[in-house]
């Protein structure tokens, strides 16, 4: 078995609002093997970004991590004090976001912003920081980095800004990069460039990546393993090939079927009926049951646990439990 860099066990993050508690992340478990890419896919509100923010402990009030373990190189990030977690952030685990312009400071040059990371984690002079910043810009494929290093974020295009974000994130050679929808705001031709860049840097640096996306195409092309999230829970965990060839959870199947195909003409897409349940009125049983074509009475009452099919494949669906299969003779697909 491959070495595991990060393991999340039964993570729970809730938001305590005036209207009540929203269990944004409700018992999420997964692992990230060293040097590999884990994809987290799900629709808006499924809790994928909150999971990522929880790993770096960046949840702000009224949100709170209320349970679970996040083991990074054997240490529980949730048990660390403020100084210890600061040593991890940006140094061993770093993150890039969807909208680079809101993550970059408009009043500092990009050289300053990359240099800041070095100066926060390594004792080096300003000049040395700038030299390293130029080297980073070169590594992320920004032309004429000596000139660019003194420019401000607004002078760069969207794709270039995302490259700068990547340069900042990778400045201290982290073991894990969390990319939260890194290409969603970009055009397809620029998206292709950025995804290539992330893959290329991952190979060169042998780091792990958590790729968060709602785009199944991006997931298929960049990930080794995938966690599918729905309503704050992982409903399926799988290696990428199995997920796309033989999806198991009805939600995953529904998602794949609702994509327009590139190769055949279809008159109608098979959409998943209904919409995501209101977070204040979560169904008692399986959260997907109200939209599931196979749901039986028991699905509305009992929340299924994550059932392991083999080492790398897990699914949270009663259809894959032994009792269902003995009663109903197999799994409908």
């Amino acid at each position, binding site marked *: 078995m491959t070495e595991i860099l990060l393991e999340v066990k039964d993570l729970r993050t809730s938001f305590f609002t005036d209207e009540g508690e929203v269990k944004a992340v409700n018992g999420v478990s997964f692992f990230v093997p060293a040097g590999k890419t884990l994809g987290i896919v799900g629709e808006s509100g499924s809790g994928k970004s909150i999971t990522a923010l929880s790993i770096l402990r960046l949840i702000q009030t009224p949100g709170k991590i209320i349970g679970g373990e996040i083991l990074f190189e054997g240490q529980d990030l949730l048990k660390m004090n403020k100084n210890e977690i600061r040593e991890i952030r940006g140094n061993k685990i770093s993150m890039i976001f969807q909208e680079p312009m809101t993550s970059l400071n408009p009043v500092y040059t990009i050289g300053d912003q990359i240099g800041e990371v070095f100066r926060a984690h390594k004792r080096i002079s300003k000049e040395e920081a700038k030299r390293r910043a130029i080297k980073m810009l070169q590594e992320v494929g920004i032309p004429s980095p000596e000139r660019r290093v003194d420019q401000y974020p607004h002078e760069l295009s969207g794709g270039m800004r995302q490259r700068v974000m990547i340069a900042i994130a990778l400045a201290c050679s982290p073991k894990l990069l969390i990319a939260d929808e890194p290409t969603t705001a970009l055009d397809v031709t620029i998206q292709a460039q950025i995804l290539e860049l992330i893959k290329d840097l991952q190979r060169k640096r042998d780091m792990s990546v958590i790729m968060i996306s709602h785009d199944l195409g991006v997931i298929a092309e960049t990930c080794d393993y995938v966690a599918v999230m729905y309503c704050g829970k992982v409903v399926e965990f799988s290696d990428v090939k199995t997920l796309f060839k033989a999806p198991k959870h009805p939600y995953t199947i529904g998602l794949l079927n609702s994509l*327009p195909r590139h190769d055949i003409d279809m008159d109608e897409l098979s959409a998943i009926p209904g919409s995501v349940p209101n977070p204040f009125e979560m169904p008692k049983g399986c959260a997907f049951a109200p939209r599931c074509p196979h749901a039986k009475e028991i699905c509305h009452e009992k929340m299924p646990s994550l059932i392991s099919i083999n080492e790398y494949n897990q699914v949270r669906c009663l259809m894959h439990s032994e009792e269902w299969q003995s009663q109903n003779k197999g799994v409908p697909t």
Partner: protein
Amino acid sequence: MNQTLLEVENLKMYFPIKGGIFGRTVGYVKAVDDISFSVKEGETLSIVGESGCGKSTTGRAILRLEEPTSGKITFDGKNLLSLSKKELRKRRKDMQIIFQDPYASLNPRQTISRILEEAMAIQNIVPKKERRERALQLLETVGIAQYQADRYPHEFSGGQRQRIGIARALAVNPKLIICDEAVSALDVSIQAQILNLLKRLQRDFKLTYLFISHDLGVVRHVSDRIIVMYLGKIVEIGDKHSIFENPKHPYTTALLSAIPVPDPERVRERIVLTGDVPSPINPPTGCRFHTRCPFATDLCREKEPELRTIGDMKKGHQAACHYIDDLPKAKAI
């Protein structure tokens, strides 16, 4: 066969750039620069391209939401650009638009029934007494239960709001609906529902769609014909099979190859374009794509290519490239 419903000839849309102390016009953003096309009754014509290519501006110019710089737009036999404001408003009854963000385009202080009734009142097509009845019918048509008619937009989910936007467009019995990124903000499972709805409405009400989108998967699903735009120009136009299976312009090929495909086992050649889209303020001379085109020559830098058809291209399929006959055969995706 079908008659031409909309004809756009030599449409230009330049936005002035004001500068200097007297606010003189110092230049122009050539958002749409001399494009011509026609839309037949009952078909779906899509415009695809990256941000800044002029696709949304084209849609807005047709409705005269922005006043075009020059050109001719003939709708149903009448030249729209010669109409007075009053006449234009009447004509708009036949041409409706659905926007990307349904929340921003619905008045938050009106119930959805009021929103629909207002559309009918402005065009005065339904007697006052019958408006409520028709509003309820329309909601039913787009899949919203009648008991929800007196709710406000914030009480609905994104997908439902888009349904309301569609109902409002339908309220005046239009012939043409311009869908400007109408499904881009929606999650895939909801996107599939809306696409199915749009298709059904097209059949039931004999609608013509001008579908503006950056998502090539969606475009392939909905369109009969496709226009590919780059920096304010049409680079290729044709029926969807020609565009997807026999793309001729190098930009179309690159764009198609950049779409992430949800199949991890598919190996294909990706043409990753270098650089960004140039500024439309001073677009490149000659072929506007030459700065990013892997095949560009001196001719491309000097002379602007015209749209044309060669040997193995179907009727109506045109591309604007000097070298369509001897470029390496692009692989269909």
